[in-house]
């Protein structure tokens, strides 16, 4: 088990620089080759094998579906109940609302409602296409809604190594997992171990060690978080940057241990502010680390507005380096 980006999991894996996008397909390819029960279901995915993203021999397990998100997501749930391990590609995260019954009422609850008679080993992939002038129907970051649905596991991988490791671990998990990719990361590269690299769930990664402020950054905000940490280091402020990697389960220990040392907590979350992942992490810190906190918790989030089309309006909404620097300065 290795969560370390760049650390070979099986001791023999060479480390390559590959993109987040390539890492996604390596995970699919390897898991489909390893386990014949793994099938892919989604829109426009027949091109996966035709474009060589997946081996042509896997074609019979790639179901390029009509545009029927609830139907094919529920079909995936039924397939998971009866012996397959489906990966349902919902394409863009905003489309998840069309499949809410399949995901929230069925996938999340079936193990529970049947008293443990059944399990639902299914993975839903949803890519968050914000920051691209796609307007409000294609730009949501809806993971907080699903964090409120017990029975689901929620992952927000931020590096090529983690997206590969999380997808592979999710496919092997016996519970439903929703993996929220950040589309802006798709073509960014990073070190990824070859071979069987698995990222454990509920284990945060400390992306940068520090002693003055704990900065929990969700998903694709790692970039701005690390840049802000670098800037502030030049001003003598040491930030510890933590990437939770999975939001359900959430690694309370790593976050609370860091807060115990720093006494200051800033959370950066690309989701909307109200009831976001940042709100949950803030609540956990307030409940369990109140005595260690020396300053009020600060959230840096996207405000509660639908995403507008024009870049002039859209870009300033998301957490930026300047927003984080300003938030940290408030704590001085």
């Amino acid at each position: 088990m290795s969560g370390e980006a760049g650390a070979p999991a099986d001791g023999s894996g060479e480390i390559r620089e590959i993109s987040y996008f390539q890492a996604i397909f390596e995970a699919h390819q390897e898991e489909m080759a390893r386990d014949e029960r793994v099938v892919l279901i989604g829109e426009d995915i027949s091109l996966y094998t035709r474009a060589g993203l997946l081996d042509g021999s896997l074609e019979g397990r790639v179901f390029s579906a009509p545009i029927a998100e609830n139907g094919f997501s529920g079909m995936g749930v039924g397939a998971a109940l009866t012996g397959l391990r489906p990966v349902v590609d919902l394409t863009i995260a905003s489309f998840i609302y069309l499949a809410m019954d399949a995901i929230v009422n069925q996938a999340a609850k079936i193990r529970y409602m049947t008293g443990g008679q059944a399990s639902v080993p299914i993975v839903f992939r949803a890519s968050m296409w914000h920051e691209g002038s796609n307007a409000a129907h294609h730009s949501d970051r809806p993971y907080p809604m699903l964090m409120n649905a017990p029975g689901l596991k929620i992952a927000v991988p931020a590096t090529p190594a983690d997206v590969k490791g999380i997808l592979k671990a999710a496919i092997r998990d016996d519970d439903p997992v929703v993996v929220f990719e950040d589309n802006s990361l798709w073509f960014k590269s990073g070190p990824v171990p070859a071979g069987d690299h698995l990222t454990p769930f509920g284990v945060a990664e400390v992306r940068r060690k520090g002693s003055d402020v704990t900065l929990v950054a969700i998903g694709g905000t790692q970039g701005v978080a690390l840049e802000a940490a670098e800037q502030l280091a030049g001003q003598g402020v040491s930030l510890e940057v933590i990437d939770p990697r999975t939001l359900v389960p959430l690694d309370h220990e790593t976050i609370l241990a860091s807060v115990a040392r720093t006494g200051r907590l800033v959370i950066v979350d690309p989701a909307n502010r109200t009831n976001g992942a940042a709100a949950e992490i803030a609540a956990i810190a307030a409940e369990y680390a109140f005595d260690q906190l020396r300053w009020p918790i600060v959230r840096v989030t996207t405000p509660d507005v639908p995403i507008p089309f024009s870049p002039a309006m859209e870009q300033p909404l998301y957490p930026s380096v300047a927003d984080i620097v300003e938030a940290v300065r408030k704590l001085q």
Partner: protein
Amino acid sequence: MTDALRIEMYRRIVRIRLFEESVKKQLAAGRIPGSVHLSIGHEGAVAGACLALNDGDQIVGNHRSHGHPIAKGAQLGGLMAELMGKRTGVCKGKGGSMHLADHSVGVIGESGIVGGGIPLATGAGLSARVLGNGCVCLCFFGDGASSEGSFHESLNLAAIWKLPVVYFCENNLYGATTPARDVLAVEDIAVRAVGYGIPGEIVDGQDVEAVYRVTKEAVERARCGNGPSLIEAKTYRYGEHAEGLIIPVAYRDTAEVERWKQRDPVEIQRRRLVEAGVLSDERADEIGDEIAGEVERAVAFALESDLPDASAAFDDVYGRPVAGEER
């Protein structure tokens, strides 16, 4: 159709009927929490359809969920205990009346969300196709669900991939209190099959043998790789949408209810078997007595079973406990 099969049809119809009559009594006696959606009136449709399957085949059902597992061969004790919210219930007290899924007999889902189970059945068909295990999935739903998107999406999905699924509509003419004729653009739900290029058949849901024959044909077709079918059984529920539901105004004629009761699935099959000399009246009565005994034992088992510990509410949320989940 062998005599043994025809008698088994009768047994299953009677088993559903007597179980449901007992459920009504247990509810009135305050032994069942919540409300119950009874299958009384639907027995012929449900039993005829399930008997057209092999033991290894699967079914998916809906909120009117009691008849489905019984028709598929489930033991009654775990079902009655589930209705009473006991730890020995088939779902350990987590499901209740609308969700009597018994995986041991292939009942893989009973969805309380109207139409929610239809894609699941489609997925069981996908598994059968990919795994090549020869299974067929029978999907029960009502007239109301045939207006859900999940129904239309599923029929299209199953048709394009020729999945071994039989979509079986128990059309009891009312969605809660709304007459189906007021909310369906077509008179017969079966014609909706045309839009998906699959067979659509109408059958008399009160005639278990007719239902068996039509379903058997669809099941064979599915098993041979020729794809899904839609069957519409015209049936009727004798009671209210849910037992105990107080409905302030009449939404159906008493005469209509009485007319349907004249074509009772239990009586139709009994009379047919007696007239054909397959069953004597005495033997038919004995079967009734045997099943009444089964139901009594199920009730006794449920009554003497313990309630779950309150802490069991935290079990089975995930396969392995998730750190930080419980507080």
